[in-house]
């Protein structure tokens, strides 16, 4: 028998196959592809979302880092400021203390001077008084002991000569 024999099988097969294509396209491939497309979109959406979230997270991290840096800078500034203020204050205190000391020293010197002057004048007064007393006592003793007459004579002599004693 001849294996290559064309007959009505050919159109029958064409019709059968087209029918199969139509049925499968309608009931299988279309819903299947729609489902695949749906999944594709779902995955795409998820990926986009993940990407957006990643970017958002990165942004937040950047912000935090920036904030942290600023805070650190601020803290540094505050510490520096405090150190400077402290130094200034210390210098001021030292300066004040020095001034105070100067003042105290000056007033103490003045006091001493005054006291000294007072003591000197007192001593002077006392010395004067004492001298007078001593002189008095000495004179009295002399006058008592020696010849007053001689003395008087002498005075008179001297006065008569016009010479100061």
């Amino acid at each position, binding site marked *: *028998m001849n*294996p*290559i*024999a*064309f*007959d*009505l*099988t*050919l*159109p*029958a*097969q*064409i019709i*059968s*196959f*087209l029918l*199969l*294509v139509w*049925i*499968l*396209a309608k*009931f*299988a*491939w*279309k*819903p*299947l*592809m729609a*489902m*695949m497309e*749906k*999944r594709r979109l*779902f995955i795409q959406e998820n990926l986009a979302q993940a990407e957006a979230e990643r970017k958002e997270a990165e942004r937040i991290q950047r912000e935090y880092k920036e904030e942290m840096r600023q805070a650190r800078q601020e803290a540094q500034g505050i510490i520096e400021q405090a150190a400077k203020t402290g130094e200034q204050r210390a210098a001021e205190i030292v300066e004040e203390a020095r001034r105070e000391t100067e003042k105290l020293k000056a007033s103490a010197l003045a006091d001493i001077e005054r006291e000294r002057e007072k003591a000197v004048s007192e001593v002077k007064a006392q010395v004067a008084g004492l001298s007078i007393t001593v002189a008095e006592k000495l004179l009295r003793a002399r006058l008592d002991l020696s010849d007053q007459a001689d003395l008087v004579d002498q005075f008179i002599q001297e006065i008569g000569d016009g010479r100061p004693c």
Partner: protein
Amino acid sequence: MHETILWQVGSLGTIHGKTLVMTWMAFVVIFVLVFLGTRRLTSETPGKLQNFLEWIVDFVRGIIRDNMEYTKAAGLHAYLLTLILFVFVSNMLGLIPNIFWPLFEHVEFAKLDEIFHGAALMSPTADVNTTASLAVLTFVLIIAYGIRFHGPKYFKHFIEPNAIFLPIHLIDMVAKPMTLAFRLFGNIFAGEVLISVLLMLPGIAIFGGVVPMTVWLGFSIFIGAIQSFVITVLTTAYIAQAIGSDEH
């Protein structure tokens, strides 16, 4: 080797009954496969069969993408999917032992007793009518897509670069579907002939035939898969040629 069982269709002519019945069996197999695969369609986690179908869909999409812009031939996708599935299942059908023989042994309706006679089923693609019908459809698609993308200008390429080339173009046009049909038919028909021959090994040698039979069935599975791929790729390539004939 299968005897040709003829159905008389009135006075119009004859139909190869066995081929047609086997074609419908292939359809049934495909329907069952596709029905089970798309029964619980989901876009989340597909089942094993849905996964398999999706793999075929992606595979055929890859074939189309290799040849042309996918958007131009999106309508071809369903056709090519059906083609590769049908040819593959058809090729496999001829390798299956005739398990239906007891069912139809005494059914004389439509010569079913004769159709289901023999050791193995028959591949519809082992009949040149089946492969020729697929080739005719490819031929129609080539011209349809050529006209769709180039209008009447499509026919101008038959006389390019010169009218002298018209016969060559015509031969090319006829040779494409012809080679398509006879390549598939030849491969599968020869495979079935060899299966019949191996089954004819006489007497004690029947057991000896187990080894060559196993080897040959394995090889036939390979051939069947390759041929289903080849006819799909070539159909795509021919149509791509018609679509992009003035762009290359």
